[in-house]
């Protein structure tokens, strides 16, 4: 299973990718929406883990564009804080999971497996 991590906090996203790798999940980290779109254009990822607030293209825009290219991808939102409006928009987009930072890596892995494996909208 291939996972793409998108977050503008480089230290966070790279460390998280490394830890996922240690647990046998092929995770790649990018720090902006643009980079994410480039990667998605080249490779198919079963699960995309997205932050919402990012410089350049925001998390939701990135999500919509990736979905256009790869409708079969599942999405997990991983964010520091979500306002009510944003939260509702995310819900409307039909993401698999909405997680808050900081988080337990085991929880994330469980969600990634659910989202990637069962094509799972939960």
């Amino acid at each position, binding site marked *: 299973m291939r996972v793409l991590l998108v977050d503008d906090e480089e230290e966070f996203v790279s*460390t998280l990718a490394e830890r996922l790798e240690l647990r046998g999940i092929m995770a790649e980290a990018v720090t902006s929406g643009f980079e994410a779109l480039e990667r998605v254009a080249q490779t198919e990822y079963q699960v995309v883990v997205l932050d919402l607030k990012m410089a350049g293209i925001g998390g939701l825009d990135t999500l919509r564009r990736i979905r256009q290219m790869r409708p079969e991808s599942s999405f997990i939102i991983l964010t520091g*804080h979500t306002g*009510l409006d944003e939260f509702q928009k995310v819900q409307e987009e039909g993401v698999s999971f909405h997680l808050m*930072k900081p988080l337990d890596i085991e929880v994330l892995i469980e969600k990634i497996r659910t989202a990637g494996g069962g094509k799972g909208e939960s």
Partner: protein
Amino acid sequence: MTVSPSSSERRPDHERTNPTGMNYSRIWRWAVLGTATVSLVPLLIMAGWNLVQFRKALAAESRVPIHNLLANAKQSVSMFLDERKSALNFIVEDNSLEQLSDPERLSRLLHNLKTSLGDVVDLGVIGSDGVQRYYVGPYNLGGRNYKDESWFREVALRGSYISDVFLGFRDFPHIVIAVRQDLGRDFFILRTTIDTQKFNAILGNLHISAADDTFLVNQEGVIQTPSRLFGGVLENLSLPLSPARNQSEVVEVTSPAGKDLLLGSVRLDGTPFTILVIKESALFLGLQQPFIGELAGFLAVSVVVILLTILRVSTIMIRRIKTADEHRIQALHEIEYTNKMATIGRLAAGVAHEINNPLAIINEKAGLLRDIYDRATDDPRREKVLKNVESIQKSVERCSKVTNRLLGFARHLEVRFEPIEPEPLIREVIGFLEKEAQYRNLALSLNAAPELPAIISDRGQLQQVFLNILNNAFAAVSDGGRIEINITRPDEDHVAVAIGDNGVGIPPEHMQRIFEPFFSTKGVKGTGLGLSITYGIVQKLGGAIEVTSRVGEGTVFTVTLPLRQE
């Protein structure tokens, strides 16, 4: 005891200027005073004016009969005197001095006068030298010389004379009438004495009522005919008299006995007499008693009605103003409170977000360290590093809990109905106060009935409600106290949260007022709005709030919430 988390300084009710900063009892006093003055003063002035006018009219009215009486008396007395003077004039015109010198003729004339007039006592002829030449009558006055008497000089000068009353024959009061008859350059005088009994009878018959007193006085104020009130003939009148005029006039005088009198007087021309008519003012004052009574009654009723109306209207008005002011201030406070909470919410969200990101980095870095050392089983520092990493991760978790609570609090400021699990909600609120509970060694327990359903309500508002009540409970208990929360389902459609403490309790006299805005027992620390806002929110959410309390034993606040919103 419990009360609101926020309020203004309390002073005893009677001297309290309330939170609006207005002294309503003073406004009330001024309103009452001002309105009473502008309505009562004109009324009293009108009533006084009426009374004065009425008295004037009554006085003028009561003088009319006196004037009439004076006119009648003047006519009667003048007629009486003129009649006698005319009789004398007729005699001197009809009889020569020679004829009058005949004693028989003079006696016959006296007899005729007595027959026709009745009250003539004697008749005398006096020469220009003042010597009484001829005389018929009961006295022995023949030859008496009157040359030096003032009456003689007067009759010689003016042609006729009427004397004051004097005590004459047999001590009966008499008057003298004399006329002059010219004989070329000489003259003689015919003089007669008249018994005043008939004269008195004329005045006596004029009386309209028994209360009147009509009599004559001479120019010296000596009573000439009997007076009912001021004594007999020839006594001095004990009333001050101004010189009488030919026109009748009425004045108010006070008798020596202190009685108010109306005194009418008119001068009788060609005589020494002034006619007096005296009436007691009290008699006419008596006439105004019913009027004054009615006026006073009307006035008293009016004043009472006006005062009652003013009091009632002022009280209602000031109370309404006060209520309106309080509502306005309460609304302002609520807005202020809401704004404050919204600001805190935004701030909290910002802080939480900014902290969560670095927290996530720390978490992942620590996690990676743990991952690495987990696998480095032969590293001698493994245990130590893992222990430290675990400590870092626990700290991260603690921070994360705090930021999540802040975020939750911020998020729930927005009004929104959603399904809420009662127990987690209460736990969340308790979370805010956990530290304080620990420091103060408070026993905080939460018991929830099994399988409680979710309620449809507003999370943020409910948090505020329970936070307020818990704050009050914390304020009520002393260190080491107990606070017990029970969540139950009293019926199919409701969930009840009872928050009980073993604190100081609420005195019965405060129970009525604890939900009132601005009621506080916390002195300067409180705004007096906490419980009133709480009450408002619970009502808005369709719930109810109840309090039971015993002083010294504790207080239980029970919030009952509907499962669904209407």
